[in-house]
């Protein structure tokens, strides 16, 4: 502990004004900066939402879901199949994505949540990979060709809506979804009794059980909720990006990013995924824009993860709150040095 006041409390003036200013900025964003920045903004909002969805199960409940990206892909393919194979408008696909993800997540949750720690991580990872391989073989998902979604003004609700395919429109959809995800997380995990139950089971499952918490039930609820949130973003993303392929939206990198964002920001915190999501997303975009390399962000992120785990396990939020000071890093380094003892 460095003893200094948390950064968030050092903002001058009433905090409400800062939130108000942020809200106005987010609402006016596409009009202030144009469609290129609207696209950047909607990507950032989507990834913040996805990171938060992983944070629910991985951060608050402490279950390392290494297959979470599968639900993003399932949401995308549910919407895609409804629109391409059956010709429904997007809203139907959206509803289908929620239902499919919820049902599947529940069916997966019942056996899989009995596992813990590394076993849970490997099991979800294996499941997500088999879903991806299945999508590559199945015909309804387009197999190795992928799916091309229709995108015209009448794909939203069936009748022509003039604004429904612009960058600005998708920006506001993502803003709405991201804000909703944040609100749900805040209410459920930070304010409601539910959040205390989740944190109790994370910290000590037996103790939580002995207090009369039905941990099995709570775990399943968190898992299904987090998976549905990921699927919701997946369905909108599929509609926005128009072409979906198992190697893109079911790729393990989707899960990787969610985990990394939540971890960098700070696991089990409301605002952590915002910072982590912004940082990772911008790193990736900037590395492709300024360095001309679309893969350079990977080693960069890998290094960031290792440094975070080594020196700042509570993430950016931990640093902002003043939980990790220079002394902690120094102590950490000293302990680490003692472990090098080969010769």
């Amino acid at each position, binding site marked *: 502990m460095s003893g200094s006041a948390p950064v968030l409390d050092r903002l001058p003036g009433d905090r409400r004004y800062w939130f108000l200013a942020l809200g106005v900025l987010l609402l006016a964003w596409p009009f202030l900066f144009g469609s290129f920045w609207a696209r950047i903004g909607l990507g950032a909002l989507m990834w913040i939402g996805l990171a938060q969805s992983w944070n629910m199960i991985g951060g608050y409940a*402490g279950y390392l879901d290494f297959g979470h990206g599968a639900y993003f892909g399932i949401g995308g393919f549910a919407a895609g199949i409804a629109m391409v194979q059956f010709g429904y408008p997007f809203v139907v696909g959206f509803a289908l994505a929620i239902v499919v993800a919820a049902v599947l997540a529940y069916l997966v949750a019942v056996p899989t949540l009995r*596992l813990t720690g590394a076993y849970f991580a490997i099991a979800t990872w*294996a499941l997500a990979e088999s879903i991806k391989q299945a999508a590559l073989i199945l015909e309804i998902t387009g197999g190795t060709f992928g799916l091309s979604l229709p995108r015209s003004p009448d794909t939203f609700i069936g009748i022509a809506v003039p604004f429904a395919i612009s960058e600005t429109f998708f920006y506001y959809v993502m803003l709405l979804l991201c804000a909703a995800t944040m609100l749900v997380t805040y209410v459920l995990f930070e304010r409601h009794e539910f959040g205390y139950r989740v944190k109790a089971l994370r910290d000590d499952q037996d103790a939580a059980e002995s207090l009369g918490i039905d941990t099995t039930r709570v775990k399943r609820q968190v898992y299904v909720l987090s998976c549905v949130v990921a699927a919701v973003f997946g369905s909108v993303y599929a509609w926005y990006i128009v072409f979906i392929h198992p190697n893109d939206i079911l790729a393990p990198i989707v899960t990787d990013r969610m*985990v990394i964002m939540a971890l960098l920001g700070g696991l089990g915190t409301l605002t952590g995924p915002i910072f982590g999501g912004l940082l990772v997303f911008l790193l990736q975009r900037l590395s492709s824009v300024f360095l001309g390399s679309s893969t350079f962000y990977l080693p960069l992120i890998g290094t960031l993860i290792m440094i975070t*785990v080594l020196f700042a*396990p509570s993430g950016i939020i931990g640093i902002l709150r003043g939980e990790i000071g220079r002394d902690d890093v120094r102590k950490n380094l000293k302990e*680490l040095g*003692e472990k090098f003892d*080969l010769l």
Partner: protein
Amino acid sequence: MVDIGLFTQIVINGLLLGGIYVTIGVGFSLAFGVLEVVDFAVGEYVMVGAFMGAVLAPLFGAEGVFVIPIVLVVFFAVGALIQPLIHHVTTGDRPHPLLMGLVFTFGLATFLRGSVLTIFGPNSQDVPSSLLTGGIEVPGLGTFPVVRTVTAVFGVTGLAVFMYYLYRTRGGMAIRAIAEDRTNARLMGININRYQSIAYGAYAALTGSAGVFIGMTFNASPGMGLQYTAFAFFMVVLAGMGYLPGVIVAGIVLGLTQSFTAVYISGNAVLLVLFAIIYVVLLVSPAGILGKGEWAT
């Protein structure tokens, strides 16, 4: 009608392939036993090993075999330097030590894959070898491709040396004691930092050199790591975490499965089947098929 000639040839290929998988699996299982961390970077060690073969072979007259000693030394050193980091993040007073260890190897895997991808691009490269070409005809059985045969021989030899060290030397005993109970081992006066480094270094060296052979058998590509991570997981899940003899059987099963599905079903289905098996076995019997692994805690 099953063609007997084809059948025995598939069995030969599968067994030879299994030999090298066992090498990866045994190291991986031991690393888990000692560090209690599932190493997500295992496949990336294979990948980096294969790339070292591709990059360094031209310096040795386009002969991948000569790269092996270098890979062994480099990977042992790197592994011995990485181990303290993993040990550090899984101990001490930080919250969720297991999670941190898992995520750390995950970051390491991302770093390795991303670095190779950025430096060499997404295309696959050949690991050249002029010594290991052609095949040996065995009348009545089929052809033994030289690359795969030497690979299997290397795998079995590496494994034998490793097993000898583990079960017949004091150092090996120390490592097994750590895998059994780290705290007790420390109380017995074992320098756990040193022996954990040796164990992890040996695991990295075996896995990296297995990568060179795999590169010579197939090729080296930045995306290949995931497959071998899956293979390693498959072996230890089937065998039970930390149960070494089971890994040998599981590795051979894996080699045969891969070789049979590739011929009789389709190459695409191999991964689907493997991942599905991992998932189901974990649900039904997390301590492995024989139930002799460490129980899921």
